[in-house]
């Protein structure tokens, strides 16, 4: 039997600012992980990644990151993605300062 595809999101860095962004279902980008489009199908996920990579003058370094589906939508699986979602642990800087920023 084929292993079920673990859900993914497309994430990248904003070109002008450099902060972490997530691709939304409406083809935009959000700074809040809960607003990311959850991709449960491998072919669709690859397609969405390619569409993201085309936006060269908007984003840098798009990739697929694994997520778990929690109460508030997608949650990071790897601790690296958890840090990207929150910010560093030594100062209260980065996303944790403003966890649900409005969309750019």
């Amino acid at each position, binding site marked *: 039997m084929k292993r079920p595809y673990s859900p993914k999101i497309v994430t990248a*860095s904003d*070109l*002008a*600012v*450099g*902060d*972490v962004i997530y691709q939304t279902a409406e083809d935009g980008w959000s700074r809040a992980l809960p607003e990311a489009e959850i991709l449960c199908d491998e072919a669709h996920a690859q397609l969405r990644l390619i569409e993201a990579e085309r936006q*060269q*003058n908007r984003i*840098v*370094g798009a990739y697929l990151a694994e997520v778990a589906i929690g109460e508030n939508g997608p949650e990071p699986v*790897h*601790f*690296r993605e958890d*840090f*990207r979602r929150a*910010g*560093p*642990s*030594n*100062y209260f*800087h*980065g*996303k944790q300062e403003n966890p649900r920023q409005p969309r750019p």
Partner: protein
Amino acid sequence: MYRHTEFDRGFLAARNAQFRAQVERRLNGSLSEDEFKPLRLMNGLYLQLHAYMLRVAIPYGTLSGAQMRALADIADRWDRGYGHFTTRQNIQFNWPRLIDVPDMLDALAEAGLHSVQTSGNTVRNVTSDHFAGAAADEIADPRPVAELIRQWSTDHPEFQFLARKFKIAVTGSARDRAATRINDLGLRIVTRNGEQGFEVSIGGGLGRTPMIGRVLREFLPRADLLPYLEAVLGVYNRLGRRDNKFKARIKITVHEHGLDHVRDLVERRFALTRAAFGGADQDRLERIAADFAPPALRRAPTGAFDRACRSDPVFRAWADTNLSAHRDPGHTIVTVSLKAHGATPGDASSGQMRLLADLAERYGHDELRISHEQNVILPHVHKSDLPALHAALRAHGLATANIGLISDIIACPGMDYCALATARSIPVAQQIATRFDELRLEHEIGPLKIRISGCINACGHHHVAHIGILGLERAGVETYQITLGGDGTETAMLGERTGPGFSAGDILAAIERLVMAYLDLRAERSETFLQTYRRLGPAPFREALYPEARADAA
């Protein structure tokens, strides 16, 4: 101190204008990231986990008060009000926006600073002894030579696309405070028959294949330096592997071709480069050396210092750990710790930077140094000024008395910032420093170097720490591997791995067991951790680290 000349200013203005245009073209989409990345790296701009990061060179670790103040202003205006000083005498700003970087570079240029060649496969910022020009044991100030190398290597047309990065360190003392043996090329000023020259070592480096540098030339006459470096880099440029990034550093080139073969090639090439250098470099060196003329030190009684030592135990403790011998007995070298217990190693707030600038101007002949151990140095302070200096530092949280002790930890940014990291480093450093401060044990423990890297690249120098900690990922969690017995000085040695790693929750207790074992094992109070380790070997320390293994064997 060297001040940028008309040439330096013109070069930087042109270079910054060029980068401004490149940023514009990147933002409007005419440059792709693949095209832009090497251009931004040439100017020290990385993309990290949460933001861009700008790495600014502090050539040979020397700054004036005005330059330190400029860094503080940049931190406030375009970053988050602080900077991170690194093991290679750079400062990193962790939160710049790409759109602001051209303005930041212009502001740096105005202060005589730049980020050129702080990244990329070029000759990187030349590092040096942070006590240069002040140390009691110095043969000659290494900074004029370091500045000469900076000028020669900056934008050198032949060496902009080396196989890999190339790091050079220079020291002028027998005590190696510049980590020359773990640089791609290390220079030590030595004398032979009354003549000054260099001992040249190559092939040192850490990362995934750590190696201690080996001597390529026992004695290189002073005047032959640039043609010789040109020959070494020329040989490396030809032989360095471009097919495999992990085998591209010169340490691998030397390992694969053999030191003797590399030496032959260098000497043959040197015969040509030497003939081509007409001596203009030596005239330049002389002019540079004049810029590094020693400050006019004052003669004054030092009684105030002795009295403070007797009457104020807090001052006394600080003086015992944070002062080093100056070549002038009335003066001292002050190391200001950027390792307050629980703080991020190497970080300074803009307020602290401004205070240090003020203190340097007032008490230190306007000179500041950044050490590879991530502290700030005031190299020329008269002893009678120390009580006032200490009081000012204390008022701003900068009087931590821990230089060379267990809480004076080198830590790389790790996964709190770095995109390459496999685990965090900063919280581990914070925990260790806080714990041993609570135990009130660090002065009892004495000299001990703990260094932490957040991945195999080893930016935190963990291989040459007495206790090295390497953060890795194992099965989806942060894991910390310990090495023991490393040494980054003139008796450089790589540490040995102890065994299985520890989880983030267990690493602090493991370090504590190790240090308590040392206190039991040392022959006398004056035997340092490293000496005890060298006398007894790893076995008793392993037992302390892995008590279960001992129980199993019993």
